């Protein structure tokens, strides 16, 4: 189990579980490098990272990870086609300026893309807006509306629609609860969209 600031990040275990051993991985928005380190230790992955914050990059470099200071919105264009087996974007898609372009770049750079994001269709989110009439604030969406970096929130159904529009095949989808643990439910997408606080998708270029 990995932890970030003492809090367990079960979602990273889920993401790591989707990666084949020995593959080449680009982690976009890699933070302090916790996932890359996990992938290197457990899956012998050749991992690279992109991180915006100077402190995050320094933390990664000190761990012996190869990380480039940069921005998903502007810097993915510089990466050559098919340089990686997987491109991972963990809890960052909703904070990008152009999520569609970012996803297209990910599927160009890697044959597979792993994306995790908070589900705005989650029942607690709906309830706050419906009952209280306020912008929702949850464990995964903790910011007030006027200071949130999350400018492109979506629901699971929205994401599935975009993935299909981009011609990506959804290889695996995992619904997560508030703590990031997988929910094993066998139910239609509409139910998923209500029950999951977060989701992780493994997309494959067709």
């Amino acid at each position, binding site marked *: 189990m990995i932890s970030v600031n003492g809090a367990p990040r079960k979602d990273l275990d889920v993401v790591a579980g989707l990666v084949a051993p020995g593959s080449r991985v680009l982690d976009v928005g890699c933070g302090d490098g916790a996932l890359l380190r996990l992938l290197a230790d457990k899956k012998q992955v050749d991992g690279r990272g992109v991180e915006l914050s*100077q402190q995050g990059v320094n933390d990664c470099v000190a761990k*012996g990870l190869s*990380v*480039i*200071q940069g921005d998903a919105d502007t810097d993915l264009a510089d990466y050559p086609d098919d340089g990686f087996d997987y491109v991972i974007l963990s809890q960052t898609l909703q904070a990008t300026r152009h999520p569609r372009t970012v996803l297209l770049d990910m599927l160009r750079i890697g044959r597979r893309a792993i994306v995790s994001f908070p589900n705005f269709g989650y029942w607690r989110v709906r309830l706050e807006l419906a009952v209280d009439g306020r912008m929702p604030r949850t464990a995964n969406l903790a910011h007030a509306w006027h200071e949130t970096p999350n400018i492109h929130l979506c629901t699971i159904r929205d994401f599935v629609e975009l993935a299909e529009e981009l011609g990506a095949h959804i290889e695996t989808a995992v619904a997560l609860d508030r703590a990031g643990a997988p929910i094993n439910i066998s139910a239609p997408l509409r139910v998923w969209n209500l029950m999951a606080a977060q989701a992780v998708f493994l997309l494959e270029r067709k």
Partner: protein
Amino acid sequence: MSQAVDNEPAGAGAEPRIFLSDAPFDTDGGGRIDGLQIAYETYGALNAARSNAILLCHALTGDQYAASVHPLTGKPGWWDAMVGPGKPFDTDRYFVICTNVVGGCMGSTGPASTNPATGKPWGLDFPVVTIRDMVRAQALLVDSFGIDILFCVAGGSMGGMQVLQWAALFPQRVFCAMPIATAARHTAQNIAFHEVGRQAVMADPDWRSGRYLEQGVRPEKGLAVARMSAHITYLSEPALQRKFGRKLQDRAAPTFSFDADFQIESYLRYQGVAFVERFDANSYLFVTRACDYFDLAADYGGSLAAAFKGSKTRFCVVAFDSDWLYPTSDSRAIVHALNASGAPVSFVEINSDKGHDAFLLHEPMFIATTSGFLRSAAIARGLATEDA
């Protein structure tokens, strides 16, 4: 080849330590130097496996005195902030080598050295050397220590160009590399500033077509002007504004003359005068020329990625956001190429308002980056453990 084993750093007034090559040195430009000398300093001790050596490459007007007192100025070494016991380039752990480049004027063969063919100073008969020549000369010294693989090659500015050249020319001999505040090729603007400096030197009547040493004069005014204009490019506008602004020098009001009324004028004049005391004018022509000719991609069919093809060297590229001489975009071009070649590369853009010279100053985030990178590389190389 001579073998050098003296590890004591030089102090003020000390004779430089010299490696003498007994083979003729052929330059990229088709010239030949017989009796090539490379002046160098070392810090720390080489381990039995000869696996802990770091080569530091100096910038345009730097020298081998990275962490020892400069024999002419009496000032601390140019990378005193970074090299020493417990510092990022930890001399308790690593054997640090720093050479004066070929074409320099602190003991390595350069235009002020005696041309063995004539018995007079080389002057402009000295062959125009390249960054690659500098690196090949350094390799001769590294060979003389019996070192096959350098743990690290690091340097800023022109030193960073040498780092890139080392990694391209000897990929198997560089375990990790730190090109700092540098570029893989000189831009038109870079060349333009250098040309202004060279023309200032050549316009000085005491330059005497480069034969000033034989005539007992020195083009001090020209070289000082060259340094003044270059020095502006090493600083950022915000730093200049913060340090000097429009402040007057030791006076309450402008004098309506061409005295150094402004502090910035006085500062630049001082930089110019101090520089000519330690640097040779012809050397300045040659080292600036070496930078201008540097275009690493051009040597590899126009592809910078091809220069690093198959490289296993771990890179940490560092830029400073207020550096307008070698801006972040230059570093990103290097990173882009390294990514395309598949080499393991990290890139950090350090926030600082100190401009290009930031790499020589005490910048805590830069020091932290360097320490972290070297430490993780040392663990991978078996020179350190997770605990110590």
